[in-house]
C-alpha cells in the first residue's frame, strides 16, 4: 500500500466525519467553564505547597539565626537549612513562572522540549539533589531543633552525636549507590523523549 492510497482512505474518512461527528454542546460549555482544571495542575499544586512550606520554614530559621548570630556552631547549621529552603523556593518560583508562561499555541517541538525539560529538572531536583542533601539536613536539623526547641547543646553530647555523624557519612555513598542502582523511570523516560525530539528536529541527510 502506498502513502497516496492511505491519503485517499483518510480523505474518504474525513468526508464521512463531516456528517457523522457530533459536538455535545452542553458538555462543551461545561468543560469550557471549568477553568480551574489544567494540564499542569498537579505540578502547579505541588510547587505552590512546597513554596508555602518553605516560606513558613524560613521564619523560625531566621529567628534562630538572629538569636545565635554570634555562635557559629549554631549559626552555620541554621544557615544551611535556611539556604536549602531558599533554594527550594527559588526552584518553585522558577517552575511556576515557566509553567504560567507556557503557551501551548507555540510549535510542537518547542513546547514539548520545554515541558520535558521541566519534568527532567523537577525529577533531578527532588530526587537527586534533595536525596543527597538528606544526611546534611538531618544533622543540621538535629542541632538546630535541639537548641531551639529544648535548649540542648548537641555539641556537649558527643557520645550521641558521633554515631549520628558517622552514620550520615556512611549513608551518603549508600544514597549515591542506590540512585545509580535504581534509576528513576520518569527521569530516564524524560531523557529518552528529549533525545527523540532532538533527533526529530535534526535534519535528516
Amino acid at each position, binding site marked *: 500500500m502506498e502513502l497516496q492510497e*492511505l491519503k485517499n482512505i483518510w480523505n474518504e474518512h474525513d468526508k464521512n466525519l463531516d456528517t457523522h461527528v457530533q*459536538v*455535545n454542546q452542553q*458538555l462543551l460549555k461545561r468543560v469550557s467553564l471549568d477553568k480551574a482544571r489544567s494540564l499542569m495542575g498537579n505540578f502547579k499544586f505541588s510547587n505552590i505547597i512546597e513554596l508555602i512550606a518553605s516560606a513558613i520554614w524560613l521564619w523560625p530559621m531566621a529567628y534562630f539565626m538572629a538569636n545565635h548570630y554570634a555562635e557559629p556552631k549554631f549559626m552555620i547549621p541554621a544557615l544551611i537549612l535556611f539556604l536549602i529552603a531558599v533554594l527550594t523556593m527559588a526552584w518553585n518560583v522558577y517552575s511556576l513562572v515557566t509553567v504560567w508562561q507556557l503557551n*501551548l499555541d507555540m510549535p*510542537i517541538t518547542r513546547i*514539548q522540549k520545554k515541558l520535558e525539560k521541566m519534568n527532567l529538572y523537577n525529577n533531578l531536583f527532588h530526587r537527586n539533589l534533595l536525596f543527597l542533601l538528606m544526611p546534611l539536613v538531618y544533622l543540621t536539623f538535629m542541632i538546630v531543633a535541639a537548641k531551639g526547641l529544648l535548649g540542648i547543646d548537641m555539641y556537649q553530647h558527643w557520645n550521641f552525636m558521633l554515631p549520628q555523624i558517622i552514620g550520615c557519612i556512611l549513608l551518603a555513598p549508600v544514597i549515591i549507590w542506590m540512585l545509580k542502582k535504581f534509576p528513576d523511570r520518569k527521569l530516564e523516560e524524560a531523557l529518552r523523549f528529549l533525545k527523540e525530539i532532538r533527533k526529530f528536529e535534526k535534519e*535528516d541527510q
Partner: protein
Amino acid sequence: MDIQEEKFLMVIQNHKKIIYKICHSYCPVAEDRKDLEQEIVLQLWKSFDRYNAQYKLSTWLYRIALNVAISFHRKEKKRRYHANVEDQVIYLTTDWAQQEALTENMQLLYQFINQLDAMHRALMILYLDNHSHEEISEILGISESNVGTKISRVKQKLKQQFSKV
C-alpha cells in the same frame, strides 16, 4: 452566553474533525479518549483570548491540540471510568459508529499511526490532512526540508509495513 463563548463554540463546531482525528490517533482506547477531548477543548478555551490572527486558526488549533495530545499520551493516564456518549465532547452518531468499526482500511491506518512515535504521529496526521510542507513545518517547528525528508522515510516504512496488504 457571551460573544466570546459563542465564537469559541463555533470554532469547535467547525474544527471538530481535527479534534476527533487527533484523539483517535493518540488514544486507541475509548475510555481515555474522552479525557483527552475534554483536555484539548479546555486548553483551546484557555488560549482562545490569546489567539494571534497572524496565524491561521487551524494552525493555532493544531498546535494546541497536538501539544495536549502528546503530553496526555506521555502521562500514561489511568482509566478512571468508562466512556459513554453523554460525557464525550465529540462523538460519532451511533449508526455510523458501528459501520465505521467495520472499515478495515481505516483500522489499519489508525493502527499504523499508533505505531509511530509521538512526533512522527503528529507529522503523519498533518500530512494526511493535506497540509503543505510549509504549514507542517510551522506547526511542528522543524524546517521544510526536514518535513520532506521525514515524509519520504514514512513512505519507505509504509511500503515495508503494508507490503502484504
